[in-house]
């Protein structure tokens, strides 16, 4: 049976054991092969929401579904295979001495034989561009390489969806760009569903099909990238902003009294729009 919705949270509420409310009546859905970004200030509830999709936290109220199945104990093993989770800090995700051992941890626990595990490790390392680093010790890797190794460890389980908690945190601009390109490539080539929590607004239009904005444990807005980033006052309330390029063009349009143009979300869109505006002026 094919489900077009892969991950879904219905009326999800959560309180921590000390009664701190973290999520309140959250409704989220992510379709297969879709890339969704979760935006929100620190403490908005992004990580708490993500952890519900792999059963690391149990809802106080509401329910979470993966491929139509509620997240409950009998389905957990299947869910762990279907949904991979990449933590913000790779040092907390890589626990084996070498890269290959760490990447092979999941396939080994799936009960695969030595050859199959080695194949999966090789395949996953190739996907993230670390094919020559299998024998390297984890603590000899750079931060960016550790992030890739963490992703490889999850990819080796061959999941349908990848949940990434602030994947670009701590990376330099080049490293962040490369990581997002890698995720984009995985989505295109394998139809991988991506759910990414992030603060990096300027990069969101590059990969996200849809965006959820969180504020104090609630969904403040959601929709396609253009719609969400057109809500400047709401974004400001949520301690966020539209992409810089979009803000720049909003100012320019205001000055030039242009009303019938869409604001660009990426550099590529901005370039096209500028060319169009210049040719109109000529």
């Amino acid at each position: 049976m094919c489900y077009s919705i892969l991950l879904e949270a219905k009326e999800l509420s959560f309180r921590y054991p000390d009664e701190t409310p973290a999520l309140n009546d959250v409704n989220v859905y992510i379709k297969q092969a879709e890339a969704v970004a979760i935006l929100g200030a620190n403490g908005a509830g992004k990580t708490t929401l993500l952890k519900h999709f792999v059963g690391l936290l149990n809802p106080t109220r509401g329910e979470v579904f993966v491929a139509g199945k509620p997240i409950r104990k009998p389905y957990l093993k299947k869910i762990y295979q279907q949904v991979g989770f990449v933590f913000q800090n790779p040092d907390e995700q890589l626990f084996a001495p070498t890269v290959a051992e760490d990447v092979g941890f999941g396939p080994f626990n799936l009960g695969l034989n030595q050859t199959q595990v080695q194949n999966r490790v090789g395949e996953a390392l190739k996907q993230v561009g670390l094919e020559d680093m299998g024998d390297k010790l984890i603590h000899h890797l750079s931060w960016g390489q550790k992030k890739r190794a963490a992703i490889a460890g999850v990819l080796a389980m061959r999941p349908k969806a990848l949940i990434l908690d602030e994947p670009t945190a701590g990376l330099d601009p080049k490293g962040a760009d490369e990581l997002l390109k890698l995720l984009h490539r995985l989505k295109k080539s394998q139809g991988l569903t991506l759910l990414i929590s992030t603060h990096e607004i300027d990069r969101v239009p590059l990969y996200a099909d849809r965006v959820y904005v969180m504020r104090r444990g609630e969904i403040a807005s959601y929709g396609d990238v253009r719609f969400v980033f057109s809500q400047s006052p709401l974004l400001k309330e949520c301690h966020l902003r539209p992409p810089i390029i979009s803000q720049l063009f909003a100012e320019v349009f205001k000055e030039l009294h242009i009303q019938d143009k869409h604001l660009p979300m990426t550099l590529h869109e901005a370039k096209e729009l500028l060319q169009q505006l210049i040719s109109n002026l000529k």
Partner: protein
Amino acid sequence: MTHFHFENRLTESDRGLKFLGRIDVRVKMFALFLSLLLCVSSRRIEVPSVFAVFAIVMMFWGGLSLKEVGVQLSAPFSVAGLVILIQPFLHDGEVLLHFPLLKWTFVATQEGLFSGLLIAVKVLSASALIWNFISFTPSRYILSAIQWIRVPDVILELIAMMFRYLFVLLETGSTIKEAQTLRLGYSSYRRGLRSAVMLIHVLQYSFGS
């Protein structure tokens, strides 16, 4: 989320402070040491039993839930259970039961059982008393009481630093365990054991380097 319960108990939770908080922390510390001494040195099972019951009742009375008490006392209960199982076979005395297993004959004695029960109750009472103290005394009061008994500043700073890094260790350990769980690291007993060894190794390495 065990570490979460633990952190709450050890940090700034004011639960139970309405009554227990009125008692000077120095008095509580003195009472704790005296109780521990009595429990550990007692040769009669009644003494530690009374302290164990008292400490557990106080934990409930102070507002801890059954789950919280269970989480805190699960380790000492396991140790106590193990001791009761093993001790009867390690002492001479009046035979309670004996059975052959492979080429050996196992003999459980009454003296051994009593010794096991005594050790188990001591473990339980001491753990419950310490948890009782920790649960209702915020860390800042404990540190000031240690300062009052003129413990050198170096040791005090070391305690404060250990206290801080205890939570870093717990949080890191908890996240690594979550990462292992998500890659089926605890899907069977054997895998769980292997993952736990890896977890201990990586924590030891992280905090040792």
